[in-house]
């Protein structure tokens, strides 16, 4: 069955909403990148845990949570308008 035709270009508000959804999709990718980054820190040189590592992880964690909290209200609002898969 053919999908209903969607407009090719959008007004400012729906455009922003789409990009917010894109950002929400990308957020876990960013998170994964930041959480895997320490794997590149030279492991041979350091045999014990430093407080810096702990601080780094909790800081990343907190930033991700803050971003998710910032996205959440906008994502919850504009959901009703039918299909939104792209």
């Amino acid at each position, binding site marked *: 069955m053919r999908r209903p035709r969607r407009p090719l270009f959008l007004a400012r508000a729906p455009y922003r909403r789409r990009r917010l959804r894109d950002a929400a999709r990308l957020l876990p990718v960013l*998170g994964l990148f930041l959480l*895997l980054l320490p794997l590149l820190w030279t492991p041979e040189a350091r045999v014990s845990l430093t407080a810096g590592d702990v601080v780094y992880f909790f800081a990343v964690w907190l930033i991700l*949570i803050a971003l998710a909290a910032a996205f959440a209200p906008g*994502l919850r609002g504009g959901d009703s308008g039918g*299909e939104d898969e792209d």
Partner: protein
Amino acid sequence: MPFNLLVLACLLYVAFLFAVAFVVENRAARGRLGWLRSPVVYTLSLSIYCTAWTFYGAVGYAARSGLEFLTIYFGPTLVFIGWWVLLRKLVRIGRQHHVTSIADLISSRYGKSNTLGVIVTVIMVVAATPYIALQLQSVVLAFGVFATAAPDSSRPLDSAQIAVWVAVGLAAFTILFGTRNLDAREQHHGIVTAIAVEAVVKLVALLAVGSFVVWGLAGGVGDVIARIDAADLAAWQVQPGRWTGLIFLSAAAVICLPRMFQVMVVENEDEGHLARASWAFPLYLLAMSLFIVPIAVVGLERMPEGANPDMFVLTLPLAEGQGALAMLAFLGGFSSATSMVIVESVALATMISNHMMIPLWLRLRPGAAAADDLRQVVLMARRLAIAAVLALGYGYYQVSGGSGALAAIGLIAFLGVAQVLPAMIGGIFWRGATRTGAILGLVTGLVVWAYTSFLPSFGPGAVLSARVFAEGAFGLAWLRPLGLFGTEAMDPMIHALFWSMALNALAFCLGSLLTFPGPVERLQGAAFVNVFEGAVGPQRWARGQVEPEALLAMAQRILGEEAAQALFQTAARAQGKDGFLPDPTPPFLDSLESRLSGSVGAATAHAMISQLVGRATVTVEDLMAVASESAQILEYSARLQARESELTRTAGALREANEKLTQLSLQKDAFLSQISHELRTPMTSIRAFSEILTEGDLPSATVARYGRIIHDEAKRLTRLLDDLLDLSVLENGAVQLTLGLASLQGMIDTALTAARATRPDREFLVIRDLPTEAIYLRTDADRLAQVFINLISNARKYCDAARPELRIAVRQRAGRVTVDFIDNGKGIPKDARRVIFEKFARLSDANRAGGAGLGLAICREIMANLGGSVAYLPGQGGAAFRVTVPLRLEVLAA
């Protein structure tokens, strides 16, 4: 601290939970949940992810492997902050399809296949059993810590007895609040609220212990950081494989764990709650792990060599003489363990009863089904299942003897449930995933997981013999449980993760690519994958031969009399019928099935209805028929639309024609009255004067005058009749045209001369451009001249300027010649321009110089006959008429 006091506190705490659950259940029954359905409660209930494993085990994990324990929280964090991608869809599907458990989701997606439901249930039970044992073990260990710490160690209970009592108590609580009723959506408000309370307790407990450690034992944050740097924590020898693998594993587990699925999808009240939980739940996890590293570091420093780091949360406060804090920590750990066991056993019991016990029962007693109250059977099955799950957990604890670090068992369980991931993700994002593929993937994953992770966890010689460990199954070296295909170098955990997920996904994809899905599967696949695109297309039920009474009887047994009757009555009213028995239409059967599936699962509900309706499944042909039918309907409606617009157009044309006819009729009436008036005026004067003449005896001068009047009036009458005759001839198109070449200039000369007879007293200035008039036209010269005369006479008659002028402009363009007659009077008012070409139209009676107002009408008809036109030309500074004639008039059909 006295041991008995601890037991008392424990009992009081459990009593408190009972009270909370009881009050909430009662409020829910009266439909007054209010703030209990808030996102806060939803988020807190998600915290059952943090079990006793987290509460106690994380510290031990940190003490053994440094920061690796964080991976267990990073996975869920990533899944939740990316809720828009996956969780939103999962929750929407769960709500739309009344999913009751993760086994129900998989079975429902793949054509309501009960086989799949059974497989998923088996995986979940096998994976959950050690996990539940782990919770029992943690409680027993915690009791043990207090028992040994107590100076008056009277030890009223040994560890086995404690485990039994904990298991029995949990079973009682779960059965009481987990199987109170069969809800349409399998929701348990009492339990969820109790879980939320426990979430607060464990968070507060852990934060309290952490604060005590950081600010009580160590000297604040700075000191703790210095200690972490100084500590000989086993390592930041982070292994990239384990780090990445564990993040993936915990992310998979948070979706697939039965208890997580239960609180996240099944108990979800409102999709908006998920948006809030997307950041609030990671925040909760962060708070839970904030003090793990300090507790581990300080514990390693202070506690004697060989102390179990898993119990630092308890032993640290105890060793420092903080009895109350230790009690709080104990209650926190107890909360973690009990909440996990309660929800896990509810979720597992739902699966076991819906996918194993009820189908079996229906098969064993097909006839008796009609007689019994199925609700009681289902509830009893649930209760038995809960007891069985807890008994399994207890049995595992007894057999394994409480061995192993908590973290290891937790990870094995995670890996077990993660086997569902390919079938689930594939099922909701890929329409091509088939039942066979899912079965193959799940079975492969289960086997590999058991062989590489679960069975080896018992140790060599327990289930797998030492020979198998060393030489591989059947003596094949490449089948060694910890080194499949020669990969011994891998970490055992990652080895199991890698091979089980890889082979699972491979089997799933291959199976899906190579098989053809059944019709119900395809329907369900489309409905799941396109869940955001509105309603599912075709109906799943054809109109059956079923009696509504039988349906009602069945529904009553599952939903209860009141609910079933209400459902049927509503449906009947929607169909416009009285009473309780609606027609078994496909939409009604669909809604009934989805309602039933909320209680007994999709597969069972489908099977029960198809037993009654008689037609088990739709076929591919049915699907195709429906599809082509809808295509036909589309085409038909398009055709209807075209016809409708055509009809609209025709109706418009008819209306126009009707209006024109009405107007014509009015015109005809007006014409008749006008003409009788015009004929009557001269006739009256003729009759009057001829009467006077017949009386005789009049002076001859008078006779002559009267005779002239009569003559004039007769002439006027004749002229009028001539005009009328002329007009009628012209209008009928019956006029005889004498075509020939004629000079335009000559015609204008003639016309000017002839028109001079009209009001000869006025001196007109005529402006002409003679060279432009040198055109020879092929037309009827007399008729065209007649038009010119008429126009010029009109100008002479009506131009009211003091020094009247008439400008005649000729233009030739594209085979047509236009002749404009423009005077310098004040022209014709705008609203009068429309009527001047109508018969008997006269603008004023001021200059009634003969003529009946037929002049312009005749002009118009003549021009029409000559293939041209005459029109009023506005905006020329006076009255202006434009005559357009073709240069060469082709002879029309005679």
